[in-house]
């Protein structure tokens, strides 16, 4: 399988706290990679370094290289805004823009830059909402506030908003942790479909979820990458003792 994103000796510091230690990892294209590990192991930190979200935190320092195709996204010449257009992100808590309608939320990425033709907008809204299986539920109330939707619907709306700007990679930071089991199931089905077109990297606390949705799994502990491999292998015959202990629930 082709590699889409590569971490080369990634280190992340917050002040004096060394949160991610010398991680090297290849994320395969058009597949789902899960990042698992106990709280505070640095999995979210790794995820957020992939779309340069740490740039917003003054105390954060990222070293090493992150290659997207053949460009280092931390290169001086690279604009973080351009990186985030190519690498979208879905957050832990659904965060639609409350001042916008459902329709406007989907095309929010286009509203940033301004011009978008009305007919184009309608097409984008319909196709994106169909992709996240939300269209039938909201097609009659596109102009109402996004806040009237349930949590699961809001999260699917956020995914629609992310794919609307056509990124290549989608990062998901525990996207189901605020949702009920039925909403979670819908998001998981959606992730399965998304990988046909996108490279999906998902951080999750839920090991069953990692086992269900991902093709590859990376296990992190104390800021270090302990083991990385095909999900099937990680969950059945892990090489490292720590991985096995975590997966079998002996710690974490």
């Amino acid at each position: 399988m082709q590699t889409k994103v590569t971490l080369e000796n990634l280190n992340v510091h917050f002040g004096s706290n060394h949160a991610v230690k010398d991680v090297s990892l290849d994320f395969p294209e058009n597949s789902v990679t899960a990042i698992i590990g106990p709280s505070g192991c640095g999995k979210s930190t790794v995820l957020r370094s992939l779309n340069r979200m740490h740039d917003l935190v003054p105390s954060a320092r990222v070293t090493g290289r992150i290659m997207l195709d053949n460009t280092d996204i931390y290169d001086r010449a690279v604009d973080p805004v351009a990186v985030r257009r190519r690498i979208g992100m879905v957050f832990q808590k659904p965060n639609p823009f409350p001042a916008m309608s459902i329709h406007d939320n989907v095309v929010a990425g286009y509203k940033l830059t301004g011009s978008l033709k009305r007919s184009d907008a309608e097409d984008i809204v319909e196709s994106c909402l169909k992709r996240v299986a939300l269209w039938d539920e909201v097609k009659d109330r596109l102009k109402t506030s996004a806040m009237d939707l349930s949590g699961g619907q809001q999260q699917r709306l956020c995914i629609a908003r992310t794919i609307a700007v056509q990124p290549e990679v989608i990062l998901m930071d525990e996207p189901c942790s605020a949702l009920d089991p039925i909403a979670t199931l819908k998001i998981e089905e959606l992730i399965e479909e998304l990988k046909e077109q996108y490279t999906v990297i998902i951080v999750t606390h839920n090991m069953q979820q990692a086992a269900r949705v991902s093709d590859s799994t990376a296990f992190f502990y104390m800021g270090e990458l302990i083991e990385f491999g095909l999900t099937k292998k990680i969950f059945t015959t892990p090489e490292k003792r720590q991985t096995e202990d975590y997966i079998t629930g002996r710690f974490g």
Partner: protein
Amino acid sequence: MEITKTMTSAMDRETAAAKTAFISGNKAWGDRLFRWLTLGFSASILLILLIMAFEMIKESLPAIRKFGWGFTIGKDWDPVQEQFGALPFLYGSVVSSILAILMATPLSVGTALFITDIAPKKLGGAVSSLVELLAAIPSVIYGLWGVLVMAPWLQKTVQPFLIDHFGFIPLFQGAPYGVSMLAAIFILMIMIVPIITSITKEVLTAVPTAQKEAAYALGATRWEMLRVALLPYARSGILGAVILGLGRAIGETMAVTMVIGNTPQIALSLLAPGYTMPSVIANEFAETTSKLHASVLMEIGLILLVVTLIINIMARLLIWSVTRGNSGRSA
């Protein structure tokens, strides 16, 4: 054995005591007293307000009887001839406050954005404390500065410039007096910037990080993030801040009285002197020439009260209509 028995009986007694306390309602009595006390306090505030309104209406009755509705559209003001019309004061109050708020709002929102989202933390903190310091300056000091420093500067520099370059607009015609409607607008603007800035700052700080990150993750620049995520989320709060500023501007007496020129006229030009409702009350109540004069001032006070009430009601409706269905609700 003996000890266990004593303990048991002690526990029994305690339970019994607890039961009695629960039933007897000793605590409930205290709660009731406290409830009546707080109710009394809040009722007294309402009562004071009612008494005030009642007294004002009673005292202004002679003026109301004499001039009727014509008072609010009358333009003449001559205490000696007992000619009274409130329009110049209404006009002065409304125009100075509204123009001041129009100028202060962008300045304040910009400052607040700088403090919360653009400046490095330390610099932002410093600017923020300075702004709050401005709010603590007594209005008479603003007035003194206005009349001794700002008005001469307006007269020598700003107004001649406006007359020379924008004199074709009626707003900037006439002679440069210094003390003028323009001076009042400037001083009001300076005085309400701190209040709008500090409330807006609080509102912006309360916007969840998730909202900002949502915009950044879509590839927003800082400016786009402000426009798409931050300001829409905060807009009802900002609107509230602006309305509070407007309330302050319309009631401001001292500083305005010192710089507006106190001439009861309706001039289209901002360079001409004007008058406001609070100013005429402050200037004339101590030297009223007749019972009717005093009554007229009372009626102006009443109008000021009503105008303030209307502004507040409009503000609430505005905030309500903006909040309904979108921002203000948490994500």
